[in-house]
């Protein structure tokens, strides 16, 4: 059944593709962290129209599948606009936008947990909006939700095979390609699965460490 020499033969190719998986996941997550923060902050704008636009964007992105968004960014956008990105860049952008909307909700829960008195004290001290956000609110809002954000990183890692639909050769597509040449499916898919498992375990470990650190810091 399991052929060790075959597994060893295909492993380097799969690992190379796995680098794409990790790269796209990390870059996508990084972008989502930024987009999520921007969305969460503008969702609290004093201007009604701004809040409405942000809410619509979030709602729209969250209620359409990532795959559809990727197709749109990769195939339709270059037809509609002069913009055209590589498969990798499109994948990162798609993951960033899609999970940015989810992360904006994570930020929101952190921001809403900051007592109103903190906003009021900042106002009474006449701090600017920007100073209030970056010196008073976010330093209190973000640390408690870092573990939740970490969970989304794991979700994003597991979502990267979707990027194969826009021809990004991540680990699962690489496994599939390998299988279609050799007609041996067992080893490539198993190795791909194990790689995902290992990465998720490492990240879960990181997240739970983070959780413990945050609990200790915010217990008292």
């Amino acid at each position: 059944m399991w052929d060790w020499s075959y597994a060893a033969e295909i492993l380097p190719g799969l690992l190379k593709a796995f680098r794409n998986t990790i790269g796209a996941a990390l870059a996508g997550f990084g972008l989502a962290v930024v987009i999520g923060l921007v969305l969460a902050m503008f969702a609290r704008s004093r201007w009604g129209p701004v809040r409405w636009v942000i809410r619509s964007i979030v709602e729209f992105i969250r209620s359409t599948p990532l795959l559809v968004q990727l197709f749109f960014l990769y195939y339709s956008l270059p037809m509609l606009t002069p913009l055209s990105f590589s498969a990798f860049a499109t994948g990162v952008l798609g993951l960033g936008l899609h999970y940015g909307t989810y992360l904006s909700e994570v930020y929101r829960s952190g921001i809403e947990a900051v007592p109103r008195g903190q906003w009021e004290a900042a106002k009474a001290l006449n701090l600017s909006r920007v100073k209030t956000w970056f010196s008073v609110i976010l330093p209190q809002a973000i640390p408690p939700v870092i573990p939740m954000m970490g969970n989304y990183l794991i979700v994003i890692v597991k979502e990267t095979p979707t990027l194969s639909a826009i021809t990004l050769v991540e680990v699962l597509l690489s496994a599939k390609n390998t299988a279609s040449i050799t007609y041996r499916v067992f080893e490539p898919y198993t190795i791909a699965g194990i790689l995902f498992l290992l990465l998720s375990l490492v990240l879960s470990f990181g997240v739970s460490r983070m959780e413990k650190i945050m609990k200790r810091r915010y217990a008292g």
Partner: protein
Amino acid sequence: MNQQLAEPSAAEKPERPVADAKAPPLVQYEQVTKRYGELEVIKGIDLTLQPGEKLALIGPSGSGKTTLGRMLATLEKPTSGRILVEGESLWEMRMPSGKTVPANDRHLRRLRGNIGMVFQHFNLFPHMSVIDNVTLAPRSVLGLSKEEAHERAVTMLGKVGLDSKLSEFPSRLSGGQKQRVAIARALVMQPKVMVFDEVTSALDPELVGEVLAVMKEIARDSDMAMMLITHEMDFARDIADRVVFGAEGRIVEQGTPADIFGQPRSERLRSFLSRFG
């Protein structure tokens, strides 16, 4: 129901210079109302505060006194009426054409620079040390250098007796210490008027004294106007130039501490005071 304003009496407090009654008012509430949905908590208040004047607001809970203070600190917007600070309306700007338009952020921030507030629940920034709490606004709002802000903050923390706790975090302070830091944090901005919103109400009884002592000292030494929203009658009697008694969103009675506590005129005030022995 609204009474004419009593002039602050100079005879009451000979130990320190008293508010100049002839100076233009520092703060002026004009027919101010505040409504939350169906509930009208402030029902047309006229009230002035002279520069340096120490005004105590007393009254039963729900009388609207906290709302009155919060409106001055721009934390609440009046439903109608105006609040003027040094003759300028908080929530409206006069354009060169003479038209008044809703205030923008710049206008509010400029006027808010005259106003400080100390809260019932301190609202210290928990992620910052004592010294960072006190230097944040001087550095970022007044543009002081790190050294200047530090020096000013240490002086102020010395005044409230906490200059030994500079690098402590709020979570390691007692309630009384927290409130004294909050007072220093507000004072360091050198506002012309400071709202003290029931600053001892959230404290354990044995910690009230230290905060009141600090505030008495401030009242004695500083020419800042103070709006003291308080349930501490002895404290109001000791440091106020003028006491305003409000109930159900209106001013019922006002006068010198001697008048208000010695010869209450209205039944409402008499029954309120009787509860404080």
